C-alpha cells in the first residue's frame, strides 16, 4: 500500500497516456469505421457533456448518486464496525454468526434488486439499501479480522499501565485496528460506487446509473459515454479522498512496516 513519490516528469506520464488515448479515439471515429450512433466521437461527447451540464441534469445525477452512496456506506460503517469488534471479541458470537456473514458477503448485492424494489419502490431508499448490503458485510469481516490480529502484548502493556476498559477500547483497540480498517474502507467504498450504478439503472429515476440507462434507451451514445466518464472520475476521486486517511501520522505505522 506504500504510496510512490513521483518526480514531476513521472507525473506527466499519465497525462501523456490520456492525450494519446484521446487522439486514438478521435482518429478511429474520424475514419468512420463504425456509425456515429455506435461509436460517438470525442467532439460529440464533449457537446453532450456541455448539454448535460447546462440542463443541470448532470449535477442533479451526481448529487443523487453521491447522496445514496454516502448514506448507504456511512450506515454500513456505523453499524458494521461495532459488530465486527464485538464478533472479534466474543468467540461464541463469532462461531454463531460468521457463517451467515460469509454467506451474505458472497451473495452479490445485485441479487437483492428485485426485493429492494418490491420493498422500497423506486428512488433513494432501494439504492441505499443495496449499497448497505454491498458494504456492510465486508466492513464487519475486515473489522473482525483486524481485531483478531491485534498483538496480545498491547493488552498486557495496557493492563500494566493501568488502562481501564473504556480506555482499552479508545486508546488500544481502535488505534490498533485503524490502518486495516482504513484499507477496508477504501476497498468497500469502491464496491459501493460500483453498486450504485447498477442499482440506479433498475431502481432509479435519477442518478448516474439511471443517466446511462436513459441514454441507452434514447440511443444517445454520446451521453452514455459522458455518464461512463463521470462515474469513473468520481470513483477515482472517492479513493483519492479516502487515501488521505492513510496520511494521518498515527496510522502510518500500519503501512510502513
Amino acid at each position, binding site marked *: 500500500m506504500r504510496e510512490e513519490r513521483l518526480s514531476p516528469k513521472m507525473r506527466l506520464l499519465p497525462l501523456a497516456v490520456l492525450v494519446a488515448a484521446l487522439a486514438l479515439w478521435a482518429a478511429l471515429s474520424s475514419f468512420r469505421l463504425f456509425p456515429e450512433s455506435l461509436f460517438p466521437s470525442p467532439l460529440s461527447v464533449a457537446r453532450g457533456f456541455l448539454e448535460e451540464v447546462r440542463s443541470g441534469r448532470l449535477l442533479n445525477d451526481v448529487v443523487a448518486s453521491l447522496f445514496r452512496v454516502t448514506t448507504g456506506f456511512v450506515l454500513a460503517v456505523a453499524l458494521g464496525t461495532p459488530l465486527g469488534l464485538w464478533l472479534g471479541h466474543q468467540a461464541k458470537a463469532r462461531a454463531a454468526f460468521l457463517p451467515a456473514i460469509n454467506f451474505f458477503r458472497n451473495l452479490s448485492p445485485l441479487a437483492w434488486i428485485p426485493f429492494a424494489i418490491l420493498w422500497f419502490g423506486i428512488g433513494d431508499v432501494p439504492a441505499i439499501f443495496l449499497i448497505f448490503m454491498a458494504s456492510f458485510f465486508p466492513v464487519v469481516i475486515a473489522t473482525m479480522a483486524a481485531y483478531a490480529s491485534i498483538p496480545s502484548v498491547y493488552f498486557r502493556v495496557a493492563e500494566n499501565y493501568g488502562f481501564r476498559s473504556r480506555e482499552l477500547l479508545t486508546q488500544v483497540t481502535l*488505534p490498533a485496528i485503524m490502518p486495516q480498517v482504513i484499507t477496508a474502507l477504501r476497498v468497500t467504498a469502491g464496491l459501493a460506487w460500483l453498486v450504485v450504478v447498477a442499482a440506479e439503472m433498475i431502481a432509479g429515476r435519477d442518478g448516474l446509473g439511471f443517466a446511462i440507462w436513459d441514454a441507452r434507451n434514447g440511443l444517445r451514445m454520446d451521453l452514455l459515454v459522458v455518464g461512463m466518464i463521470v462515474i469513473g472520475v468520481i470513483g477515482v476521486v472517492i479513493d483519492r479522498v479516502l487515501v488521505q486517511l492513510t496520511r494521518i501520522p498515527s496510522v502510518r505505522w500500519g503501512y510502513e512496516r
Partner: protein
Amino acid sequence: MRDKPLRLEGVSLSYGEVEVLSDLTLEIGAGEFVAIVGPSGCGKTTLLNLFSGFVKPSAGRVECDGQMRMVFQHDGLFPWLTVAENIRMGLRHLRQEAERARQLKEMLALIGLKGFGGHYPHQLSGGMRQRVELARALAGDTDILLLDEPFSALDYLTRLRLRRELALMLRERPRTVVLVTHDTEEAAQLADRVLVLSERPARVRCELNLDLERPRDATHPEVVGAVHRILTELGLEHDAESALVRM
C-alpha cells in the same frame, strides 16, 4: 515497602500434563537485581508471568508488593503513539501536568533521544525502540521492573550498549529488577544474583552472587568467571584444564 517485595512459596504450575514448575521457593529483595537464566522452554518467562499475575500457580503462593511493570522482547511500544506519548503512559498516574512534562524531558535526556519525542516507533531503530521501552517502564515511580529478554532482538553491539545504559538508568532510578534472559553474559554483567534454572520442571540449579559495581565490562574477569560458571552449570562448557590435559 517490605524488604522482600517478590516471593514465591512452594509454587507449582502445570499446563495440562506438562509440569513447568514444581515446588519452587524464591525470594527477591528490595532493590536487588536478579537474573534468571536457563535452557529454553524451562519456564523462565512463566516466572515473570507469575510475578505479574498474568499466570496463576496451580499450587503455592505468589506474593508481590509494589507497582510492577514489564518490558517485553520487542514491539511492546504502541506504534500509534509517538515516543513522547509512549513514555507519558508511564507518567499517567502523576497528577500535575508540569511534573509529567518535567519527567518526560528527563527521561528523553536519560535515554539520549532528546530530539525524538515526536517520532513514531517505526521511525526508530530496534535499539532506540528498546530504550524508549525502558524509559516508559522506568518513568514515574514504580517499584519493580520485570524484563523479559528485553535485548534479545538486538544485535550484539547494541546489546552491549543498552546493558550499560540500563545500569546507568538504574543508578538514577533504583528498582527491584527481575531479568529473564538466555544471554549468560547479560546476566553476569547486570545482576547482583544469577539464578540458573534446570530443565522442566524448573528448579534453581545454582545461585551466583556478584558483588560488583555496575556498569560492568563484558570482559571484566569476574564477569567472565561468572559466565563460565553459568555455562558449566548448564552443561555447555567443559572444564578448560581437563581439556588442556587431553591435548
